[in-house]
């Protein structure tokens, strides 16, 4: 079931003490997850320093806490002044269970939750027995009208969608010219994505900073913001700069967004071979196919029975700690895909080599004996 947490400056929080703290939480939410959600609650009030493109932060992030991944929808925005007379903000996070994910995707669900579920003011402090009821719904591909309404070429929505699909492991910076109502733009992008990919894609409309524990792929930022240049220099990052009146021309995906056609990822086989350590006890081996469907090499192919890496399944312990880079799972997925027959195949090859060596030594021995 879903769970929620509201974090704001309150005179007396749920955990005692005044100031920034938990105002509302679903009973039973694990303490480490609560702390990790608190970490996601920051808001930068200074317009000169804020990098994000939107005044409100709408976000879908995959949070890794103690080896488990959670899909989290968030809304963080200013909400007047707090009890001490200083600017306050309210952050409302909803942890979405796998079964409750709407096919329409996280952006659609955020927009739906904004209608009466997500807090815009500091609520009464208290614990709730259960999380919010989450809406369900489907969303088919459609022309990117929100982009046109905002004064941008709708083709850019397709360019963004294409970048998200083709470079699933890389951050993608969407640089917008100024403060923009970004959630409708993101909804348009998600409408173009295949349904089975939507909950893999993470985003923030008011990106603050990258976090080792929270994955955020699409980062909406404001052109000319202080510190943006250093952010965009991140290796491997995709940068899409959108300006009013500038056409996306024939860039990949642009036409699909103009006509409302779904975008499929390009099939790209990953040729890198990664060594995989396998446990001798098959029952103790990590559940590799689960959590291995983030596959940049065959993203359009839906594999029956596979789920996303944020299903909450415990992962195999990693020497790098609980937060693993996305590409690590890619390596595992490559291995898992070819792994079913590869170990047998390898054994056959080794056996063949050994047999040939034995045969050769026998022949050599016979030749030596015959010479003597």
């Amino acid at each position, binding site marked *: 079931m879903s769970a929620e947490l509201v974090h704001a400056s309150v005179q007396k929080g749920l955990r005692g003490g005044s100031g*920034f703290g938990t105002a509302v939480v679903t009973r039973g939410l694990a303490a480490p997850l609560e702390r990790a959600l608190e970490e996601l*609650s*920051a808001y*930068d009030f200074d317009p000169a*320093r804020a990098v994000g493109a939107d005044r409100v932060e709408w976000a879908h992030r995959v949070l890794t806490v103690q080896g488990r991944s959670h899909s989290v929808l968030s809304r963080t925005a200013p909400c007047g*002044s707090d009890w*001490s007379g200083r600017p306050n903000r309210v952050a409302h996070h909803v942890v979405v269970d796998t079964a409750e994910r709407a096919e329409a995707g996280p952006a659609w669900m955020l927009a739906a939750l904004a209608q009466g579920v997500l807090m815009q003011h500091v609520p009464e402090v208290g614990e709730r027995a259960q999380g919010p009821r989450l809406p369900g719904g489907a969303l088919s591909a459609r022309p990117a009208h929100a982009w046109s309404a905002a004064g941008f070429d709708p083709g850019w929505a397709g360019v963004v969608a294409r970048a998200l699909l083709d470079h699933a492991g890389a951050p993608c910076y969407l640089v917008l010219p100024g403060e923009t109502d970004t959630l409708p733009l993101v909804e348009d992008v998600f409408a173009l994505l295949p349904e089975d990919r939507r909950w893999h894609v993470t985003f923030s409309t008011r990106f*603050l900073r*990258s976090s080792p524990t929270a994955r955020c792929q699409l980062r909406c930022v404001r052109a000319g913001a202080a510190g943006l240049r250093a952010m965009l220099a*991140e290796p491997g990052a995709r940068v899409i700069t959108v300006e009013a009146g500038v056409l996306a021309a024939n860039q990949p995906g642009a036409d699909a967004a103009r006509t409302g056609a779904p975008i499929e990822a390009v099939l790209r086989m990953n040729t890198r071979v990664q060594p995989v350590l396998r446990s001798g006890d098959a029952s103790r081996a990590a559940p590799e196919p689960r959590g291995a469907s983030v596959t940049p090499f065959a993203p359009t192919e839906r594999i029956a029975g596979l789920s996303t890496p944020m299903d909450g399944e415990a992962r195999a312990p990693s020497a790098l700690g609980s937060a693993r880079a996305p590409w690590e799972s890619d390596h595992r997925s490559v291995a898992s895909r070819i792994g079913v027959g590869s170990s047998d195949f390898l054994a056959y090859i080794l056996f063949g080599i050994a047999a040939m060596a034995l045969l050769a030594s026998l022949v050599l021995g016979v030749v030596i004996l015959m010479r003597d």
Partner: protein
Amino acid sequence: MSTRSLVSSINCPHCWTEFQPAQVRFISEHEALRGDAVLGDAEQMRFLPSRFDARGRALDPFGAPCTRMACVRCHLELPPALVEIPQTIVSVVGAPACGKSVMLAAASFSLRSGLVVEGMHYLDADTSLNDLTVELESSLFRSTTPDTPAMIAKTDLSGRLYRSFRSEDGVWTAPKPQLFEIARGSARRMLCLYDNAGEHFLPGRESAQEPVTRHLGVSRALVFVVDPTQDQRVVERLGGRDAVSATGGGGTVEQRQDLVLIEAANRVRRLRGLSTRDPLPFRIVIALAKADLWAPIASPELADAFRAGLGRTSVAVPHGEVLARVHAASSRFLEELMPELLATARALDPGFRLVPFSGLGKPPTRDAGGGGLRIRPQDVRPIWPAAPLVVAISEAEPAMFPEYSVREQRAS
């Protein structure tokens, strides 16, 4: 090539790891060396240099000369001066909304003027690292729109005030240090300050993965900021909660400030492995904030010094004898209205110092409709804003500020 004399050891201002200058990592400059094992792909690689050019600069594996340094553990950047100048970490502690950020901004702003202490120089060690202080100062003290009401935002628990790094199989979060070079005569020090959120000091808030208050384990002075207007007894004497809240006072807050002081002292002992019988390794300086609000009910001397709307700025730290009289007056005030705080301070450090100050010098006003507190930057007149900080540094480095150090005065 000039010679450099290095300090014997460095305490990283980010993660507080102690290491020798010879172990310091350098930050690679070559573009091909992107990606670091601790900080991630977005950062340049950190390395222990083995090759140097003729000017003594470290060479990265691709031969590019490097001058930027980093910590051996967290790999976060250190100002180069840190390997040459001894460091003085001052912990600024206090309950939420007591005025820590305003004090830091006002103190930093006034210290830059050179008018606070005669002969004292105060410079940013690294302007890129000190962006938080610069931002705090610019909101009220260097505003480009001095007639537009503004206020310093509440310090958040996460976000860009903090840095994360991966070490020992975990992800750690630490507050961003603000580093300043202070000099007086031939003495030089690297002053290191942190703007923690008050919530971090509340009992039960300490977390292993968020060691945001671990500077208490290495600091050489403790400034404990107290807002007397958060106490019910003071509030009653000032005319009630509404009257106090309307002028920027804390009103009645359920958080007891003496408990925050006890929690801070306990953390100091835990982090340094001290016995409960051991004295604290530094002097506690209690900075009494918003003195312009409560001074009139404390003593005539304080009332004169902090009378609201004086129309002048008093940034200079008062002389030692004035500080002694102010300490005595503040002590009487606390004894009457906040005796448990006074008793706690006495129990923890019998030689504690009381220093009142006002970061704004004038009460802010509430927006129409009972909204947020605002003050026009042009109306801001801080009174003794840097006094608590200077007194704390003088207790840590008595030879540098002998006129403010009780220890030094007793010795002389």
